[in-house]
């Protein structure tokens, strides 16, 4: 009996154990089945969603900004270049304890903790507050480890020469877009093309696999100018001294190679520092050598004389009666001289003495149509075509609008409006034997590997604006006479024979008719050596202060500046061994 009872109890316990086991096994199977179902659901139904989340987490995007191309002078000196700078910034919206972050950061960036805290708390942008610009590698590395602090890298445009060639080089905006000068004119070539690097990153955001690149990264091309910064410095130094001494409103100086039209120097005052363009008076951005139009006055006389001799209406030896200082007639009013009156003068003497009446009579002989055509051939009334933005056309009214006044006034530089670059071109034509030239600044464009993309080839002379013998005579005889005997004596040099012409132009009144008696533009154009002109220099100073009593004429104000530039430039070019434009 007891044996049967034991057996029955054992069977009951066994059955209970099996049931418990089955129960727990069912739970386990059920759990696994649920997991399997969940896996199936995630993998099949939610695949797309989690793939997106995964890609967003794993993908990294790195914008690749191209390096802006360099701008060099003809000797390879850097005028403008870009360099990468690293900026340490804070992200206020994720910083829970600004004081603690500031304390950690203070020792790294060598700034006061209080100052950093103030920047973080007062920052208008909750995502970016600049703490330190141009940080070094160690500072960046240490700062990046602090939560809420990051490092931003960007290109910074640098101008090592500062004021020196500001108007030629131009300047850029904060987002590296050209806003003036060569920076603007060739912005498309200089700025390069950006790209985006897409890669896969690990949990620490380290790139582990490339994915794709959107766009092609290409750094900007380099630009080599015809400018020589040594000559530019000579020009600026001489000009700025006179500009300040005479308290002038503005001044310009241009130096060019007459055979090719290559610009060796171009100075416009007042100028600015391209690195500090944001705090500059916007008026200073004007490149007055190409934007400012003015009545040139007597400085244009050699051009008109050349047109007249070339047309055969006057010859080199005949004398023209200059009415002893007062010339009037029907249709052209009364013309006087600046100083004394003259009797009979040759064309050479008219230029040496800068006789207005002599030029008026020459203009009458040439006639309206030929005079207009001649001036148009010399490039007046249209852009010179220099590769800088903002060039003005000047004003040469069509011949049909000319009156008797025009035919007599234009020859001595009134009723015509020119820019300095147009004047310079005209004298380059005279100096190089009558060949047309176009002033230019860009010598070559160079790619990132040093390959030449574009090279300005010297163009062979084709055709003449005026006959070579006429041009030679005007330069070697008449304009040399101006410097040796006439109004340009202050441009005389010992070592080289300089040729030139002065100009003292009245400035028209803005409030009423007629010209101001106090405001002048003093100009001088010079070239040397006369045997084979290597350079042409144009200096123009607007509104020298007459009340200082130091003079106001082209011969007094502008000629000494031109002489100084010519002397220094030729000495330098001699030592340098000439140029290959």
């Amino acid at each position: 009996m007891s044996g049967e009872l034991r057996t029955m109890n054992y069977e009951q316990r066994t059955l209970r154990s099996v049931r418990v086991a089955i129960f727990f096994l069912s739970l386990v199977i059920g759990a696994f089945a649920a997991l399997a179902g969940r896996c199936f659901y995630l993998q099949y139904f939610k695949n797309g969603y989690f793939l997106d989340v995964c890609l967003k987490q794993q993908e990294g995007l790195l914008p690749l900004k191209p390096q802006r191309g360099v701008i060099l002078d003809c000797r390879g000196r850097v005028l403008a270049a870009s360099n990468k700078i690293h900026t340490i910034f804070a992200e206020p919206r994720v910083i829970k304890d600004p004081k603690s972050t500031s304390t950690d950061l203070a020792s790294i960036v060598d700034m006061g903790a209080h100052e950093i805290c103030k920047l973080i708390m007062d920052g208008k942008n909750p995502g970016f507050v600049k703490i330190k610009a141009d940080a070094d590698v160690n500072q960046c590395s240490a700062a990046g480890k602090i939560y809420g602090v990051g490092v931003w890298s960007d290109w910074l445009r640098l101008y090592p020469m500062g004021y020196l060639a500001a108007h030629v080089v131009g300047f850029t905006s904060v987002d590296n877009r050209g806003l003036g000068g060569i920076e603007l004119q060739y912005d498309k070539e200089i700025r390069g093309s950006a790209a985006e690097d897409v890669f896969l990153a690990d949990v620490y955001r380290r790139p582990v696999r490339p994915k794709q690149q959107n766009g092609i990264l290409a750094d900007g091309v380099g630009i080599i100018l015809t400018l020589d910064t040594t000559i530019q410095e000579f020009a600026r130094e001489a000009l700025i001294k006179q500009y300040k001494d005479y308290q002038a409103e503005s001044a310009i100086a241009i130096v060019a190679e007459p055979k090719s039209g290559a610009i060796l120097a171009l100075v416009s005052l007042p100028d600015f520092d391209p690195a500090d363009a944001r705090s500059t008076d916007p008026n200073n951005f004007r490149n007055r050598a190409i934007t400012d139009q003015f009545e040139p006055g007597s400085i244009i006389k050699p051009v008109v004389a050349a047109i007249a001799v070339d047309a055969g209406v006057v010859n080199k030896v005949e004398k023209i009666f200059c009415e002893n200082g007062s010339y009037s007639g029907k249709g052209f009013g009364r013309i006087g001289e600046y100083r004394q009156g003259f009797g009979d003068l040759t064309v050479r003497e008219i230029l040496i003495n800068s006789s207005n009446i002599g030029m008026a009579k020459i203009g009458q002989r040439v006639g309206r149509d030929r005079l207009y055509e001649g001036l148009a051939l010399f490039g007046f009334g249209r852009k010179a075509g220099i590769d800088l933005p903002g060039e003005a056309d000047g004003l040469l009214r069509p011949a049909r609008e000319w009156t008797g006044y025009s035919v007599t006034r234009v020859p001595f530089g009134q009723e015509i409006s020119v820019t300095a670059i147009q004047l310079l071109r005209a004298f380059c034509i005279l100096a190089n034997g009558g060949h047309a030239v176009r002033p230019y600044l860009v010598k070559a464009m160079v790619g990132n590997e040093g390959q030449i993309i574009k090279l300005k080839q010297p163009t062979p002379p084709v055709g003449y604006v005026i006959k070579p013998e006429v041009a030679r005579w005007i330069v070697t005889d008449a304009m040399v006479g101006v410097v040796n005997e006439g109004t340009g004596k202050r441009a005389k040099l010992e070592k080289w024979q300089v040729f030139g012409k002065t100009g003292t132009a009245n400035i028209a009144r803005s409030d009423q008719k007629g010209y101001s008696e106090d405001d002048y533009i003093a100009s001088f154009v010079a070239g040397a050596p006369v045997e084979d002109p290597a350079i042409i220099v144009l200096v123009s100073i607007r509104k020298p202060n007459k009340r200082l009593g130091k003079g106001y004429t082209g011969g007094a104000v502008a000629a000494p500046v031109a002489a100084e530039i010519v002397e220094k430039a030729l000495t330098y070019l001699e030592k340098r061994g000439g140029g290959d434009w």
Partner: protein
Amino acid sequence: MRFPFRFVFVVFCFAAILIFAAYLRGAGNRVFYKLWSINTEESRLKQQLWQKQLQLESLINPAAISERLGE
């Protein structure tokens, strides 16, 4: 008694191979990251050299020399 040692050895080798395979799987990523770091460093050094050159240019350009001569 040899049986447990052989079993342990097989399991050990198998585990080692699996670990090595997992390590190799990430080798490409490590190499890519190393390459990326080296390229970044090279770029940084180039920029540093360029910065030195620009500093030198700002010291020896005609404007700077003229200013120093004037002083």
